[in-house]
């Protein structure tokens, strides 16, 4: 069905390719010989004349991919080529627009834009001329002497664009450039970017955009790559052939958005038209791992989602749900994942449906909800089960956090271990499976009196 608006992309191997990645992967070596694979070996090319959007759930290594392609990060294996020369020896002319803008607060707008030219030894007068012209192009005429902190978020990102474009990069990388902005400002900047690109006002050959906003990708991109996680790998890679300007309300547009949602919400099933280069690759699946990857959602969020679903008859399209809630997919997906992991939800074809326990949960009052959550957590979440068992087994009913961190770090990176532990603590505390003493970094069994007191408080 998708073939009506999206066709497969043949791997380009012409002379025109600007950046070509060959079998790049990223892993972190662990002391115990195990290594944590962040990105599986991947081939990817960036050719002139296209805007590429890279989509994927959090933890799929979108930003890591961008940094490897731009030369900011070295692949653990494989090679990135810049015009067929290894990128670390090439004068790669690239820029990045950052999510946090990454402007220097102590430099004026003009000085910020001039700085990259200064690094390239452009003489002062020429530097000034080029910077002023670029500031004019992005609509910041008259703001040269202002400091970034005096500007609004949108204006600041304009400075970010001016700084990126002033070096006339062949490839412009953008790392979620609009996600720190409010909806209207982001929309405005997006259309201006498209205008610059269409009129060839910006001297850029190709744009590589990392985003978690599906609509943004469909709106801007000529080609969309969707990443999956554990480890990060390309799930699908296709061209978007809708004509610009694109209409969000057109059927072709919404169909494409829906298709991407389906791909994103069904990580266990390969997309209907999996590209040839994907077969035979060893992709580590969540189910092969000892510990599940806990989605970083709060129990309150899960409860909220379930209660919302009950109001809507127990079933809903994820896309509509996200839209109605004005949620970004990155904010909604962990909650859906968590509910699914706990057995409260089923996800099928981009639709979510409540299970029996999910319905019971949503219809119960808070104390009963905690009980249901506790049962579901003990049943479905290995880490929580282990913590609870260990606490019961020990005579003093207390276990240090490190004990579990040591086991987790066989499987996750150091940062991820911390996040997994934080999520487990939040869930366990909510479920009253255990308590956690943050100053001693130890799990403790909640004693009965405290538990009663907590229950009374919770009931109020």
């Amino acid at each position: 069905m998708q073939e009506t608006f999206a066709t497969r992309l043949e791997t380009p191997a012409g002379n025109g390719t600007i950046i070509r990645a060959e079998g790049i992967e990223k892993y972190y070596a662990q002391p115990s010989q195990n290594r944590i694979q962040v990105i599986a070996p991947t081939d990817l090319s960036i050719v002139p004349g296209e805007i590429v959007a890279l989509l994927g759930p959090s933890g799929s290594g979108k930003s890591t991919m961008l940094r490897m392609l731009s030369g900011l990060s070295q692949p653990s294996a494989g090679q990135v080529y810049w015009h067929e020369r290894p990128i670390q020896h090439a004068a790669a002319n690239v820029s990045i627009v950052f999510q946090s803008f990454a402007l220097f607060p102590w430099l004026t707008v003009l000085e910020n834009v001039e700085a990259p030219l200064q690094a390239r030894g452009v003489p002062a007068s020429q530097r000034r001329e080029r910077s002023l012209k670029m500031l004019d192009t992005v609509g910041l005429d008259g703001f040269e002497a202002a400091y970034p902190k005096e500007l609004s978020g949108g204006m600041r990102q304009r400075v970010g664009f001016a700084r990126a474009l002033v070096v006339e990069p062949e490839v412009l990388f953008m790392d979620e450039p609009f996600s720190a902005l409010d909806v209207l400002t982001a929309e405005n900047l997006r259309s201006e970017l498209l205008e610059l690109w269409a009129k060839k006002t910006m001297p850029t050959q190709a744009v590589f955009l990392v985003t978690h906003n599906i609509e943004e990708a469909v709106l801007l991109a000529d080609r969309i790559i969707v990443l999956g996680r554990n480890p990060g790998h390309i799930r699908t890679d296709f061209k978007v052939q809708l004509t610009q300007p694109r209409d969000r309300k057109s059927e072709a547009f919404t169909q494409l958005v829906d298709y991407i949602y389906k791909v994103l919400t069904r990580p266990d099933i390969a997309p209907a038209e999996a590209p040839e280069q994907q077969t035979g690759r060893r992709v580590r699946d969540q189910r092969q791992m000892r510990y599940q990857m806990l989605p970083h959602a709060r129990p309150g969020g899960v409860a909220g989602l379930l209660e919302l679903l009950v109001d809507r008859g127990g079933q809903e399209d994820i896309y509509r749900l996200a839209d109605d809630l004005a949620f970004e997919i990155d904010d909604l997906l962990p909650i859906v994942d968590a509910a699914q992991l706990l057995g409260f939800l089923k996800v099928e074809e981009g639709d979510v449906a409540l299970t029996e326990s999910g319905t019971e949960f949503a219809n119960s009052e808070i104390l009963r909800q905690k009980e249901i959550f506790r049962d579901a957590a003990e049943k479905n979440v290995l880490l929580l089960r282990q913590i609870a068992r260990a606490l019961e087994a020990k005579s003093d009913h207390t276990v240090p956090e490190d004990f579990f961190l040591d086991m987790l770090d066989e499987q996750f990176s150091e940062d991820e271990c911390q996040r997994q532990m934080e999520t487990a603590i939040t869930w366990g505390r909510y479920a009253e499976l255990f308590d956690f003493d943050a100053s001693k970094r130890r799990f403790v069994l909640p004693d009965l009196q405290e538990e009663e007191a907590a229950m009374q408080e919770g009931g109020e």
Partner: protein
Amino acid sequence: MRVQNTFGRSLVAVRNWPFFMDLMIAACGLAIFFGMIRIGTYWLSSPMPEAPISHSIRALPLYAFYSIVRIGIAYLLSLVFAVAYGYIAAYNPRVEAWMIAVLDILQSIPVLSFLPGVMLAMMALVPGHQLGIEMGSILLIFTGQVWNMAFSFYASLKSIPREMIEASRIYRYSGWQRFWQLEMPFAAIGLIWNSIVSVAGGWFFLIACEMFPLGNRFFRLPGLGSYLQTAASASPVDMHGLMWGLAVLVLIIVATDQLLWRPLIAWSDKFKFEQVESSTRVSSPLLALIHRSSRLVQLPARIWGTLDEHIYQMLATRSRDISVKPMDENGPGGSRMLQAGLAIFGGLVALWGGTEAYHLIRGVTWLDIRLLFLGAGATFLRVNASLALAAAWTIPVGVMIGFNPKMAKILQPVTQVVASVPATALFPVLLVGLIRLGGGLGIGSIALMLLGTQWYILFNIIAGAMAIPSDLKEAAQLYRFTRWQRWKTLILPGIFPYLITGMVTASGGAWNASIVAEYFHIGHQTLETMGLGAQISAATDSGRFSTLLLATVLMALMVVTVNRLVWRRLYRLAETRYKLEG
């Protein structure tokens, strides 16, 4: 590796290096100590400058000038060292842990114990010349003020946001550009605040080390410190001279505050790493004046600009800067050899230090050691008594000032200046008073330690009380908290992190102060009380290096132990449970 960047003389590093590193570093410290004494004693026979100190008030401006020059040079040295040390530590993961462990130990060692060693060594390097003894005093001041600055710069470098570094990489900044446009601006505010603390610490040591007896000699350097001490030890006591000396000292400190620190703080406001402009700003009339007289500042700026331009052009043409440098680049492969070499060298040095120490200590009797431990206990009690006393009066007063914004605005700068007046300068005056009252040094030394320590606590408590959000205060009022409830649930937890920061600094200061507080020459008599500080001073006086060494090691050990067992834990508690966020 993570270090708290706070306003304090000693900073608490999050410990993640093995214990043997501390031991090795301590042993290397011993080796350096002996190296200095060796050279020093060898050259002791050469002529020694013992400048006569004038009693005349007319000599004061010149003396003040000498002292300022010493402080200034020592400060510049500290700045350069701190930046270089912080830079190397932050960017060389292979040596990082070592370098931070070294800092942590060095900041715990009582600097005044090194006085004889450093002086002898420096005089030996430049024999028969005033320069040697000058260099000695400068080096001593340097060691008193450099550590927290190095810590601060290192911590700043480590906390630069990742995307800022990535921006500097992707736009191919040279090291030069990165230093001036990213690293220095980012570290500026921490560096300036720590400089203020450091220079205050510098005065403390300057006054103590301008005049001191060693063996049967009496060293003097012309300066404010020696002027004050001479006035105090004249018989009868020269009150007139003392008062004048103190007045000049306070004048210098106020002038430094107004002419140097305030403009610097106001100027550094633009380096605040914030997205929104904050409402509270320090104002400086002097800075405004400089800004207005634009022609005055334009000339150096223009000269610098031209020079800078050439450097950028030169760097841009170098070929190795044309590609983007990856963030996770591995270091050069050969440095493992270098590291092994360094480790072997360090081991040999530690071995030598150890055997030397053994030979020196062999002569020490058990009686001496017993005495040392008794002294250590007495000083320990005194330090803690002074801390408790300081906390007892500064907590209510500090909270009162902090809760009253008008009062805080006036009093905060004042306490900052008062905190900068070195306790060592006030000792003679206070001692004269104590003797007249008939009190002994046993109690008196606690008062002397208080002088040096209470201001840091007060200063931090004011800051803490001001940081308690007003909605919490309003909530306490709304629910009609009793006075006790208000203190227990709101005020004490609110100021806790600040209190701990102040106490850590104060505790280190009190141990250092014990060396000058427990043993004092006044007139022709020597006042002395039981204590580790007194033993260090007495050992310095009589040239008993074995006792000096043991006492110093013991003091360093106690400081390190108390830091590890008490302060670091409280610090972590402050960080986790009592942190007011948002």
